[in-house]
């Protein structure tokens, strides 16, 4: 007999779908089928069952081979590395639960480390803009029930957040949006033709790197001021037409992604987009929301901000929290050669960072805590595989709209495997002894 578990949370993207169903074997040790999740989410669940999974910590030997070691030895190695480093960097956190993140912050404080999450290469620029001018935002439930103007700026949810459109933003029939897609006008701003832009009522195929100018032009158009004939490759009449579409709605939402956060102007793009949202609130109700990537990157920002006062790129080396991306951000620290130890958890900088920064990881002592085999685990000196959070252990996570949702355990991890939190507690206790901290 098999068991079907309903209302499972999907630990893949920031949409954090909460209606997944999984079928497990009677003894709860095998995960057999996944329903309702998108293809990426399904793969995330099924990947935990793969036969080639690494189940023991492995230490790189002088000849380049790996040697299996125990979790105790791995915790000793990690604690010693952190205790001995002058400026360790603790990066990742976005694919683990808030409980583990909080233990990680205790470690960072004892080790006087720099700590950072994947926002550094994703929506960190959004957080800079939010600190600069604030954020008028809402929950995804409000979007589903109220939004009749939906703008996707520099993002492609059809591929990156596959169920976002069906659950919240385009298709669902909500309380005030009873006709589903028919009750919404969709504007997509993207230099490329994507599967999202194909569904749009208006697709502004903007020149690359000119988002700041187009956002500015929309603000100018709202004020009825002079505009040049064309901005970012879009004619002025079109910009005025879109400004009219935006302000004629009852409730509008701007979703934006890495197309604006990591292209030319970065935080300024978001700054201007938030200012546009504020301007639109002169006419009707508008909100803006980042399309967060990892399922708990938002939670990592929450935990950092709750415990250190800043949402990412926190530098604790002087014993108090400082924050200045450009100085305290991971890629800058690695490419400038500012750190002497690298601790990675729940993320894959080896695949996402520029090669110059990855070379920086290879040069220093490094530990990678990740259930998967990744480019980061490949470049690290110690790889500690752990249980899949959201599949083999539960814990708190935050959806992209800052709503906390508890992930669920649906299947047992392979025998003897620890969770992120359990391993981090071992490291914390050892580090306390080494540093003589209370």
């Amino acid at each position, binding site marked *: 007999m098999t068991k079907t578990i309903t209302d499972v949370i999907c630990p893949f993207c920031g949409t954090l779908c909460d209606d997944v169903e999984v079928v497990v074997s009677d003894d709860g040790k095998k995960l057999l089928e996944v329903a309702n999740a998108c293809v990426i989410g399904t793969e995330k669940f099924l990947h935990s069952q793969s036969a080639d999974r690494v189940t023991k910590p492995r230490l790189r030997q002088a000849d380049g081979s790996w040697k299996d070691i125990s979790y105790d030895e791995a915790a000793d190695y990690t604690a010693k590395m952190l205790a001995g480093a002058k*400026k360790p960097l603790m990066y990742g956190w976005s694919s683990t639960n808030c409980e583990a993140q909080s233990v990680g912050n205790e470690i960072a404080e004892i080790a006087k480390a720099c700590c950072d999450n994947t926002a550094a290469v994703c929506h960190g620029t959004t957080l800079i803009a939010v600190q600069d001018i604030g954020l008028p935002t809402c929950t995804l439930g409000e979007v589903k029930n109220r939004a009749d103007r939906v703008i996707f700026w520099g993002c492609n949810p059809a591929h990156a957040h596959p169920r976002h459109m069906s659950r919240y933003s385009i298709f669902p029939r909500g309380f005030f949006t009873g006709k589903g897609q028919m009750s919404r006008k969709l504007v997509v701003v993207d230099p490329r033709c994507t599967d999202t832009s194909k569904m749009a009522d208006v697709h502004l195929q903007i020149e690359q790197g000119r988002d700041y100018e187009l956002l500015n032009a929309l603000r100018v158009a709202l004020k009825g001021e002079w505009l040049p004939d064309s901005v970012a490759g879009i004619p002025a009449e079109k910009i005025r037409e879109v400004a009219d579409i935006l302000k004629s709605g009852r409730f509008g939402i701007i979703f934006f992604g890495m197309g604006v956060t990591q292209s030319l102007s970065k935080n300024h793009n978001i*700054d201007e987009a938030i200012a546009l949202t504020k301007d639109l609130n002169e006419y009707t109700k508008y909100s803006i929301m980042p399309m967060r990537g990892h399922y708990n990157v938002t939670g990592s920002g929450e935990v950092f901000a709750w415990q250190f006062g800043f949402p990412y790129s926190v530098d604790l080396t002087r014993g108090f929290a400082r924050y200045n991306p450009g100085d305290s951000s991971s890629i800058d620290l690695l490419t400038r050669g500012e750190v002497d130890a690298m601790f990675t958890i729940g993320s894959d900088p080896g695949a996402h960072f520029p090669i110059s920064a990855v070379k920086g990881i290879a040069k220093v002592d490094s530990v990678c805590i990740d259930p998967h085999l990744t480019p980061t685990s490949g470049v690290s000196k110690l790889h500690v595989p752990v249980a899949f959070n959201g599949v083999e252990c539960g814990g708190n996570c935050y959806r992209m709209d800052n709503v906390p949702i508890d992930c669920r355990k649906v299947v047992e991890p392979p025998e003897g495997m620890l969770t992120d939190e359990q391993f981090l507690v071992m490291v914390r206790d050892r580090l306390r002894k080494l540093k003589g901290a209370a």
Partner: protein
Amino acid sequence: METVTITMKNAPALYLEADTISTDAFAGKNAAQIAELPVFEGNNPSTLGKYFEISGNAGATSADTKIVVKGDVKKVKYLGFKMTAGEMVIEGSTDQYVGAWMNGGKILVKGDVAAFAATAMKGGELTIEGNAGNYLGAAYRGDWRGMSGGKILVKGNAGSDTGMYMLGGEIVINGDSEVHVMTHAEGGKVVIKGNAKSKLGGQMVEGTIIVFGSIDVMMPGYKPNGEVELEVDGTKARFAHFIGDMGERHKKKKGVVVYGNLYKKI
């Protein structure tokens, strides 16, 4: 004026945070006392004397003190941090936060500086003979108060985000500038004698940008407002005048709306 010369002898393996290398911290101290001033290499507390050879004693006050920094200080941050008076000469290139929060005195850098130079500068003079990094004379992260007084001269090129949230003072760049100049500014002046790229004066409430060379892409929020004759740094020329950012909020002074000004040499 007394001169203290500090020469790098043991370069740090990582980067050195030396916010104590300023005329204010040195004032009233002899060479031995200066060598005991605290610095940080990562989380490791240390003293200035471990990294630098120090010769000469400081004057009684910061105004009577001159610091000459010699050797390779490319990995030293915070030189001239919160300086209020006196002089500092850095003989080569240096790292981030040169003259950050400086309030008076003079700093001369004979090489390049990295990002965040003159962060939230309030007064004094900073001269950079080489190139400047990003965020020159800008606000600290999350602050809305950038450079509010003093003068910066960059003889080379400047990076992006020069004068972000600027409130007053003057920045002159003899070379070219990267993107984003005076974003969110509410006062002050930036002169670019070379070429500028794009995003000049975005979200600017008030302030002046003068460009002698080309501008790759104008912000759409800048409206043409005729031509004017200006004298800038002794050079008289005709400039096209633009006002903006028309998308941004603007204050009224004596019943008249005040805009930011952008001048481009014709």
